[in-house]
């Protein structure tokens, strides 16, 4: 199984991005990658990384609670909000460079992570 496709770049693993350090262009630290947002879907031409969810701590999503479908017991919603209160979002165009060895992602800006209702 060829890992290097002709004419395209290197092969990486999404696991390497999880928890990577996020820094702004001027070097200031902005947190860690908590999750990697994907766009498109299997079989579609554009099944690609669409952006990063960035939080203060390592893997952040402590409760693994789906940030968008935040429904359910009041106490859990409070805990989840606390765990994700500082979550930001970096759309792909704002990603300047990824240093895979050092596990550092350099970005231009951080947008707020809106709590959209579940799209389905």
């Amino acid at each position, binding site marked *: *199984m060829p*890992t290097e*496709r002709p*004419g*395209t*770049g*290197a*092969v*990486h*693993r*999404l*696991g*390497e991005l*999880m928890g990577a350090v996020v820094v702004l262009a001027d070097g200031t630290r902005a947190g860690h990658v*908590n*999750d*990697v*947002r*994907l*766009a*498109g*879907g*299997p*079989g579609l031409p*554009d*099944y*690609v*990384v*669409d952006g990063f*969810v960035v939080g203060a701590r390592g*893997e952040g*999503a402590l409760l*693994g609670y*789906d*940030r968008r479908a935040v429904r359910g017991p009041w106490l859990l919603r409070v805990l989840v909000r606390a765990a994700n209160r500082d979550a930001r979002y970096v759309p*792909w165009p704002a990603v300047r460079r990824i240093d895979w060895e050092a596990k550092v992602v350099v970005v231009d800006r951080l947008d707020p992570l809106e709590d959209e209702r*579940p*799209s*389905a």
Partner: protein
Amino acid sequence: MTPLRASYDAGLHLLDRQIVDHEDLPVANVDDIELLERADGRLAVSALLTGPGALGPRTPGRLGSWTVAVWRRLRPDPDPRPGRIEARLVTHTDSAVHVSARARDLSVDGFEQWARAQVIEKIPGAGRAD
């Protein structure tokens, strides 16, 4: 089940989720996801990775590196690759990741075959279903 979403978070919706074949039989877990750098710089999801070779690096600390080391030693080939399922085989995702191939044809379960051949097959009644 909610149909395929426009976009979703890999960590929450794909990583560590159960992969099942089209007969709904478990194949393995999504232990990691292979990303391919395209010409335009975008990272495309090219395959789902399974087995200790994929899970080890995601488990921090000594345990993670130890898993990978043991896995390398057990595999016959010098530079073993983790189990790999092409992304295009994935049909849809709900509480599991459904792939169109049959579990047998995906050859991602070396340990299963070892356990079957070395232990289970040797015990009478191994072929009888419940």
